[in-house]
């Protein structure tokens, strides 16, 4: 690392020439990027490639034998494994529910925050709260909130005469819905702020046109704001979908995949295979399956974006 830093602090002493050479100056660019390139190749591109390859080997932890390629054996094993299919299904349910609920909740909030309300600055600041809290602490906080005996969620239910002894994170039927709500909670600020920014830029552009049309506020929203927001909506929901599909820390601390695997997201499944059972090959195969799913999301996204541009 120290050599890299040295080259940063002492760039080559050379006067700048005309604009032409600066724009195309490939060598200068490479010299400036090189200190970054080296660690990136060594500690991310190389391991990434290795990770993909490991998915086609019989690698196991603790064995010093070189892993050998076993073709599609890992995938055969995975696909014959009930827990894999359950985890896959839970991952998709989780990713889609969180993304969709988060989108509609955020859109509503963004529209409210866009209105001319008193104390709007305060509301906008409060909205950011979940974003500023580390994922592990979000999970701890919600374990307290959802605690069956002293958690305020059950307290509130009891206060209005509803059943107040629900073990939200420990019960088979409530665990997944409960972690989905926490997922929505923690993802809302980012989606809300992005949508709010989008709404504001759209309205600045289309303000005049809309005023001439004389449409009502609802009509303006449906026919003017929403279509103009489409590229942003497609981008933010695709990214949310991928991030949620990949998520780990929040649910790991909330339930660790329990009860009885009811919240076993794909990343938790892969983590267990790798670091509890030492099945490096199988876990990497799971990673590769996840890459395929993410690639499908991205292809759908790119096609939607190109259609938008036409």
């Amino acid at each position, binding site marked *: 690392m120290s050599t890299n830093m040295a080259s*940063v602090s002492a760039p080559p002493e050379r006067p700048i020439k005309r604009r032409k050479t600066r724009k195309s100056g490939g060598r200068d660019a490479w010299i400036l990027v090189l200190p970054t390139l080296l660690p990136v190749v060594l500690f991310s591109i190389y391991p990434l490639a290795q990770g993909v390859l490991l998915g086609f080997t019989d690698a196991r932890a603790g064995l010093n034998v070189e892993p050998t390629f076993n073709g599609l054996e890992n995938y055969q094993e995975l696909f014959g494994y009930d827990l894999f299919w359950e985890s896959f299904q839970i991952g998709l349910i989780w990713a889609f529910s969180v993304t969709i609920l988060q989108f509609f909740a955020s859109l509503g909030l963004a529209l409210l925050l866009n209105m001319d309300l008193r104390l709007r600055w305060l509301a906008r600041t409060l909205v950011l709260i979940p974003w500023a809290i580390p994922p592990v602490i979000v999970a701890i906080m919600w*374990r307290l909130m959802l605690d069956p005996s002293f958690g305020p969620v059950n307290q509130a239910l009891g206060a209005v005469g509803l059943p107040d002894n629900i073990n939200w994170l420990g019960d088979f039927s409530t665990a997944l819905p409960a972690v989905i709500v926490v997922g929505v909670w923690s993802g809302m600020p980012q989606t809300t702020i992005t949508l709010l920014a989008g709404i504001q830029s759209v309205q600045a552009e289309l303000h005049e046109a809309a005023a001439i049309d004389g449409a009502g506020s609802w009509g303006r929203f449906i026919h003017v704001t929403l279509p103009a927001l489409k590229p942003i909506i497609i981008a933010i929901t695709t990214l949310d979908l991928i991030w949620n599909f990949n998520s780990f820390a929040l649910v790991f601390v909330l339930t660790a995949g329990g009860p009885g695997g009811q919240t076993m997201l794909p990343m938790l499944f892969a983590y267990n295979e790798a670091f509890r059972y030492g099945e490096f090959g199988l876990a990497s195969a799971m990673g590769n399956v996840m890459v395929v799913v993410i690639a499908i999301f991205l292809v759908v996204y790119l096609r939607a974006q190109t259609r938008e541009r036409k």
Partner: protein
Amino acid sequence: MSTQTAPRNGLSQKQRRMISRPLQYLVLAGYLVFLAFPLLFLLSTSFKTSRELNSPVPQLLPESLEFTNYVSAIQTADLLTAGRNSLIVALATTVIVTLLSLPAAYALARFKTKLRGLATGWILLSQVFPFILIIIPLYIILQQIGLIDSLVGLVVVYAVWSLPFALWMLRGYVAGIPVDLEEAGAVDGASRPRILRTIVLPLLAPGLVATSLFTFISSWNEFFFALVLIQDPDLQTLPLTLARFIGAEGQVQLGQLAAASLLATIPSLVFFAIIQRRLTSGLLSGAVKG
């Protein structure tokens, strides 16, 4: 025809607003309670005594504002060590990432080379990849070079994986500085290092601050890599130690856990307070290009 004054459902625009206004405030209040209440509850829990926490009739607010939980959280050796480890790792990562991304971001913003496309692809890839594919090979590599269970190993991993986003942020800030300013300096006969030092760097300062704060916070909060790479209790970072506390239910002092959680959140809260205004514009461009 103007709808501004046209009555609909027998109500004027003004009358309808009088009905919908309170409704809007009500819905907004509902949202804010949903988003802010968990933090307030954590705050309230951090002031409760163990007697209050175990009471059969739990109260929302603590009986008195006592800082015993905070004091004991700070004095607990585990949390103190974890806090120190987190600070070391986050600071080292921030310094390395800032030094590495500064020249690279400048190059990406100012030169038109193939590098730009490669970097953009890499940055996007780094945002969408499932980390399980990286962590296993990294685990093996770090084991081979003796950096498993080591803060240095953690810093290396954090630095490399915070780099793409930091680069992306900083590139945007460099692109915001007009090239004309640099060219004016060149016409005056200044050398490139001098131009960089006297013209570019001062204008880049706010961007550098935002980028390094962001890097600091992401390493401060990180959990997955630390969970896999650090086993030694003396080397655990704050998120690891806090997660372990709640895992060992029954013995844990909830008030102390809440206090420690809040203390661990302070850097992030300060960061978000600082960059709050910049968030909006930066995110929007990120989302559209993203």
